[in-house]
């Protein structure tokens, strides 16, 4: 408006002029904008890139051998058969044993469950003590632990073989469980320490005034508050231990081999024809456990990572 010297009352009463028309309300957005095309295009390409091998695996595992020999790996199966899955699970041969992956699966479970529980139980108490109960030498202890996280573990393989032999655990599942527990310790302790350090100190003080001791505060205050970080630790350990090949093959013996080692033995067996469909089915079966864990706890995983794992 041209006239600047109007009083406020006059301005309020002035009629709405034609100059005040034009855009109003929410700004319309185009679906096919350049930005959307870029974003969705990239997303589609990347997901195809990741999903295509999985597709090939599933498709191949559902075909019979004659169909595979045609060589068209992308074509869907003409005749769907679950025989390769059955064979992979129960009949495939490794060496003299012909009971498939099932034995490896149960070995892996017997390794996984105690290792995960034990390592998380110990590491969470470690992290809690380091974060909340500063004791003499706690900083040194923590530094040593962190250094441990950076030493390539191949260095320690042989000494551990000797140590396990000396205590009579070499070649047993117990020995492997201990090895997994120890190797999980540095990173898990760091994870828990950082998470517990982000819990307000005053909460801890309040619990002390309320008469809770070391274990009282741990079990009744800290653990109930820390579900996300326990889930993160569980996922890290489950995937890490389930996917482990090296320790499994070194510290156990053939009839105690975990699933990964057995998968390798099935896939890489040189006798007879290569049964691609069985190999594919066996591989998917082996990967199913970590995959399931991710699907079940994905949201909590992200929350836990965001809450404490990345923070120094």
């Amino acid at each position, binding site marked *: 408006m041209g006239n600047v010297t109007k009083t406020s009352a006059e301005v309020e009463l002035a009629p709405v002029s034609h100059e005040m028309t034009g855009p109003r309300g929410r700004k319309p957005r185009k679906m096919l904008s350049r930005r959307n095309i870029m974003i969705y295009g990239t997303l589609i390409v990347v997901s195809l890139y990741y999903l295509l091998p999985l597709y090939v695996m599933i498709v191949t595992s559902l075909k019979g051998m004659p169909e595979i020999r045609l060589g068209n790996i992308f074509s869907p199966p003409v005749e769907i058969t679950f025989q390769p899955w059955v064979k992979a699970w129960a009949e495939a041969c490794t060496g003299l044993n012909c009971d498939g992956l099932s034995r490896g699966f149960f070995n892996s479970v017997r390794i996984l469950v105690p290792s995960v529980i034990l390592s998380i139980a110990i590491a969470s108490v470690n992290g809690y003590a380091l974060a909340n109960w500063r004791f003499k030498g706690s900083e040194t202890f923590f530094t040593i632990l962190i250094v441990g996280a950076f030493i390539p573990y191949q260095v320690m393989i042989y000494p551990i073989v000797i140590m396990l032999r000396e205590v009579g655990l070499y070649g047993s599942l117990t020995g492997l469980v201990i090895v997994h527990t120890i190797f999980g310790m540095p990173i898990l302790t760091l994870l828990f320490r950082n998470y517990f350090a982000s819990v307000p100190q005053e909460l801890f*003080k*309040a*619990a*002390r*005034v*309320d008469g809770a001791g070391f274990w009282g505060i741990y079990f009744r205050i800290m653990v109930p508050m820390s579900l996300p970080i326990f889930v993160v630790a569980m996922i890290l350990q489950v995937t890490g231990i389930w996917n482990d090949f090296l320790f499994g093959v070194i510290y156990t013996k053939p009839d105690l081999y975990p699933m990964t080692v057995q998968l390798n033995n099935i896939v890489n067996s040189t006798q007879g024809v290569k049964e691609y469909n069985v190999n594919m089915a066996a591989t998917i079966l082996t990967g199913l456990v970590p995959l399931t864990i991710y699907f079940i706890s994905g949201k909590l995983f992200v929350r836990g990572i965001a809450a404490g794992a990345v923070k120094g």
Partner: protein
Amino acid sequence: METNHSISIKNLALSFGSLDVLKDLNLDVGRGEFLVLLGSSGCGKSTLLNCIAGLLDVSDGQIFIGGRNVTWEEPSKRGIGMVFQSYALYPQMTVAGNLSFGLKNAGLPKAEIEERVNRAAKVLQIEPLLTRKPAALSGGQRQRAAIGRALVRDADVFLFDEPLSNLDAKLRADLRVEIKQLHQKLSNTMIYVTHDQIEAMTLADRIAIMRGGQILQLASPHEIYNRPASKYVAEFIGSPTMNFFDGEIVGGDGLRFSSGDQLFPLEGYQFQDDLPVQGPAWFGIRPEHMITGAEAQAAPIKLNGQIELVEPLGSDTLARVDIGGRSIWVRLDGQANVHDGDSIVVGFDSARANLFEKSSENRI
């Protein structure tokens, strides 16, 4: 020992490595007294409170609570209840669970726990909230629940660590009144840490002003306001802060304070002892002890100045007055009609002034 004191602190010291946080600190708190520890951040006030609570191990000295030496005692065995700034409620428990946590740890029978929780909830008017989780409470309700957690312990001593600092201004004023009423009702000993001088002045029976791990002055709010022991205390209490004139006390016919070309007679001033010190000093006078207008003409000390800046607060009006190149704050009536650039006569009486020695900054 010391049965007339609720808390006695003897030669307390605390250091982290080479850093001395508390130095040779002595403090006696009477039964039922409300003591406020006041200071800016890093002065050691919260550290002292944590030492009393037993949350920090002391390096030296002794702490007595209720006549019992608790220097090495666990926090829960000291007969204290504590309220924290961040409320520190256990998030996974209901309010009732929070209140009863400490009692369960102490192994009290169920019936008594319930009775105590209900009693505390009644006092704090949080009965309808007992089944809620802390996340479902507002800030004021959370702090009330936190006070409840201290209350159920039936402790002789309550420790408050900046309990109102996380609340908004309105709620802070409300809860301040509630805490004062609670103290009247329970008459427990309370030690209250804050950096807010209004909280300190309104709540305290006595205020301990702390700086650098030591108590600078321990006195009633009235005494601290009117007779601050040092320049630091004088500056810390009062808003806007006290005006200071740099100068010297000179003798002659009656003592005077000379600052630049001004000469203030010191007739009404109450010196600390019978032997007034002559020499370099600070002359301090609060903005609210300045007189203006017609009455200023009759004041023992008169200064002519010009208003630089006006801050109307509604109830009062603050004016920054330029006096011969030095700016001082003057508190005027809320109705005063003053503007920037006005000439003004400011008067005051040295009876209301504070003199501090230049080198030690202690009260003369």
